[in-house]
């Protein structure tokens, strides 16, 4: 799998109603650390099964950044059964996400 781009409109169906955990990357095009992080998430999306990887642009979808109280990006939130299970802020090494996904 790859990292799938989602929007406010598709957030519920793609994330909240997903049968499997979803790792959502909240990012923006102007954010350097977000760009650095993306290849790591792409790699993990290929390596990990049973987890969905999604990305949402917070400039185009500010409602979702508000909804989850995000004030710094990259912000990666792991959703399980429609609820936030874990959150990671800033550029972090691959192992940190490995650990997060268990």
């Amino acid at each position, binding site marked *: 799998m790859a990292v799938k781009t989602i929007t406010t409109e598709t957030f519920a169906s793609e994330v909240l109603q997903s049968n499997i955990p979803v790792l959502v990357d909240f990012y*923006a095009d*102007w*954010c*350097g*650390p977000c*760009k*650095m*992080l993306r290849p790591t998430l792409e790699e993990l999306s290929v390596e990990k099964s049973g987890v969905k990887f999604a990305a949402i642009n917070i*400039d185009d979808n500010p409602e979702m*950044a508000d909804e989850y*109280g*995000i*004030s*710094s*990006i990259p*912000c990666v939130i792991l959703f399980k059964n429609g609820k936030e299970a874990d*959150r990671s*802020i*800033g*550029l*972090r*090494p*691959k192992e940190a996400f490995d650990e997060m996904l268990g």
Partner: protein
Amino acid sequence: MTDIIIIGAGPAGMTAAIYARRASKSVLVLEAMSYGGQIINTPDIENYPVAAHISGFEFAQNVYNQAKALGAEFKFEKAVEIRDSGDTKTVVTPKNEYEAKAVIIATGSENRKLGVADEDKLVGRGVSYCATCDGAFFRKKAVAVVGGGNTALEDALYLADIAEKVYLIHRRDRFRGEDATVEKLKQRENVEFVYNSVVTKLNADKKLESVEVTDKQGNVRTLEVSGLFVAVGRIPENQNFASVIELDGAGYAVAAENCRTKTPGVFVAGDNRVKDVRQLVTATADGAVAATEAVKYINS
């Protein structure tokens, strides 16, 4: 054994890699996080010769690609110790030990924290160390900036254009930063100076809602803010290497312009070195000097 191990893949370290490879030395770059260093947080670099405008991300990528193309090897492991055995230096990471003839420490610096309860927990939920990175989240909201240096002043000025209200909290009644910036801030109606005060408490539910400040007389005041920008300086990341380099009172590695430390074969380059001007161009300059000195050391 590698000729030169470079610790840190920021502008200084990657420039050192370029110079060392061009001198035909084998190079291993060890990086704890991701290449680029703190420059990746800068949306637009306007003061580096040749490029009138370039993003920090693009700059980092270009230098990384250049170093890679020249044959520098990169490993993403955090160096936790350097052991000096004369002609051989051993760099220790949690997973491995690597040997080299010379080592360049180019680890840069990290943000100094306030040290208030719950600060770590609220990073990304209102607490930030980078106004240009996170300022956009506080459009038309109230924020506070803490600090008295140029970074704090410039952050406050930047945020004054975005936020509805900016409190500038400083523990003294005079700023260390430039007077010209202070004057500009005084012209802004939405900037309020909070002198002689320190942040003593962060109030938050899921995200920051207000900060408590206490002044020198012990008076407590609560500022309703959704963002707190901490600009109280940086800490050089030299602590792991104190056995082979000398540190000054603030933790910077003592070395002259030639980047040599007290240990022959160990060099420092970039923001973690004692110096007056910490800019992108002085970091890359250090990289060039340190690599050249390291090559000279190995060849002699």
